């Protein structure tokens, strides 16, 4: 029975996030006349692009029961590689490709440590968080690269002609749509859920667990690389200390979006709605004069609510079923939720 009812709770949480997003936009546009302006919306989208792109990959990893804390360092390493290659005299286009390749390689390295050597991903990615960030410093030392080509920088702060959408919207929409389709409508997506629910069972059902996990870590690295490119263009600079602490923002957004940290549960649209809501909320709070601190408190609070609320729903349901079910069955029911 629990098999049928459990996803229902999670689904309602995802819908809650979407509702929350609508509400946030609604309240935002009422509380400040500047909120619904084109320039503000453009700013909101630009400010969430990197986190949203990384979050699509993090969603896969957490659903598969793994985690990647090194994403911000990989993003920065990709950015640092672009800056380094460009400073060494390579054309900027090649530098961007190098940045993407470095991200992919960094992700693969995480994946190899986790799948071939069987090391726990939390510990591995804490280690590579330090390692990749350290390599940023080794590459650039304390000299950020600022003299980037005019054409590419203008992509970073200009909008797509005749719209209020920044250029980063294009990769964001394509990557998010692809992540959505693959997660919910392909065999690979189902494998990811199967691994998250029970890796042993998935293995015996013929899912190539290690290969999928390796692929997911590589995917996470590549998406961090893409985010690194966007980050470099947006700030028109490659520095060794970019995006420090982004990893926790990404994870917070993914969990707020209804993905269970234990794995096996989550939806892409819940996560995307969560990332956008957090961006919208930040903008709204700033416009009505709240400090950035309020946002820290609010996002922490939302994160807590997102894990507490499903528990409360379960609790209430167990209570309700108590009246109608015999004693022994009740005991079993309660066990399932522990």
């Amino acid at each position, binding site marked *: 029975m629990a098999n049928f009812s459990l996803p229902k709770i999670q689904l309602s949480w995802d819908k809650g996030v979407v509702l929350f997003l609508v509400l946030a936009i609604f309240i935002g546009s009422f509380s400040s006349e500047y909120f619904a302006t084109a320039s503000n919306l453009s700013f909101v989208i630009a400010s969430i692009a990197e986190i949203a792109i990384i979050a699509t990959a993090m969603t896969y990893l957490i659903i598969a*029961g*793994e*985690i990647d*804390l090194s994403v911000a360092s990989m993003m920065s390493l990709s950015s640092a590689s672009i800056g380094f290659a460009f400073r060494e005299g390579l054309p900027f286009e090649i530098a961007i490709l190098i940045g993407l390749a470095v991200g992919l390689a960094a992700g693969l390295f995480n994946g190899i*440590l*986790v799948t071939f*050597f*069987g*090391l*726990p*991903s*939390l*510990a*591995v990615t*804490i*280690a*590579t*968080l*330090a*390692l*990749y*960030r*350290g*390599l940023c*410093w*080794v590459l650039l*030392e*304390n000299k950020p690269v600022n003299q980037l080509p005019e054409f590419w920088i203008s992509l970073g702060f200009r909008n797509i002609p005749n719209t209020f959408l920044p250029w980063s919207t294009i990769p964001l929409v394509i990557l998010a749509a692809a992540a959505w389709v693959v997660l919910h409508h392909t065999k690979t997506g189902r494998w990811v859920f199967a691994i998250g629910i029970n*890796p*042993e069972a998935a293995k015996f059902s013929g899912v190539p667990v290690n290969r999928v996990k390796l692929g997911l870590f590589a995917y996470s690295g590549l998406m961090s690389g893409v985010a690194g490119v966007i980050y470099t263009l947006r700030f028109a600079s490659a520095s060794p200390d970019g995006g*420090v*602490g982004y990893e*926790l923002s990404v*994870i*917070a957004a993914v*969990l707020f979006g209804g993905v269970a*940290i*234990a*794995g096996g549960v989550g939806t892409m649209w819940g996560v995307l709605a969560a990332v956008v809501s957090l961006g919208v909320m930040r903008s709204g709070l700033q416009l009505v004069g709240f*400090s*950035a*601190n*309020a*946002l*820290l*408190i*609010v*996002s*922490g*609070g939302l*994160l*807590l609510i997102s*894990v*507490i609320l499903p*528990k409360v729903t379960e609790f209430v349901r167990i209570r309700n079923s108590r009246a109608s079910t015999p004693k022994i069955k009740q005991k079993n029911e309660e066990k399932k939720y*522990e």
Partner: protein
Amino acid sequence: MKKLSKLIRSRELPVFFALALVYFGTGFANPQFFTVTVVNDIFLGVAIVAVLAVAQTFVLVMRHIDLSVGSVIGFTAFMIGDLSSQGYPLIVVLSAALLIGAAVGAVNGYLVAYLRLPSLVVTLATMYVVRGIFNEVAKGQTIVESDVPEELNWLGLNRFFGVPYLFIIGIILMLVAGFVMYRVRAARDLYAIGSNAAAAELVGIPVNRRVFFAFLATGAISGLAGAVMLARFNSASTNSGLGLELVVIAACVVGGVTIAGGAGTVYGAVIGAILLQEILLAIGALGIPQFWQLAVNGILIIAAIGLDRYLSTRVKSTSIMGNK
């Protein structure tokens, strides 16, 4: 004989060897590394992380994690300076720091133990909330040297027979915690919980209560550690302690306190912290650019978890915390 074999198989020994190897290796390459100043620099630099690593060990052995410690220590370091600049006596100020830490620990503990929420998520959330409250209270102010209580200032600057007082504080805490975790039943239960929480419950260990109080202790110690941080830096700002939680966990992991729970000691955690600090100084002494420091730390942590995997008989990991 039995004691000897136990020592040889201990998790702390390889770390200790690494510590000695780096020390003598660097010393032979650069004899200036053998001076007392270097040892003192290591001791002084490690004090904060050592104290936090001891506290973090309580939760790590239970197969839990506490990410909120960086926010807590920053907040209490600020509050100690702020309150004492308003004229409150030291004992009141330290009690306030202890209370703040304990309160955060109690919230973490309650949510993890009684509501059975994942500690990674809970402490990530409280990390944000505490940092947010901290910034709101601080309003961008910073604590400068004149705000720091004289006693703390004195502790940060002085030595007892050549050993910095701050390091002695860390060592005393380690010895007390080490004794408690070896001798006191309630603390030993933490290892049982980390090895197999369901089995621990079945043999009659009050798992919820133990988890709650372990988080409470971690929070309280991290709160008091604010005094160590203030004594060390003589200043505090809203950035204090930012990102420190990952450094602390890295020190624990290097010292053999595994993320998978059920293993490791506070001694290992402190040795791990010392090793990281020692390598920081060794890099300078060997003439390697300082920029390599973080990368070397990363490689070291990978080596530590790889070694742990090799030495233990665990099966391959299928969860983020590793398998048993």
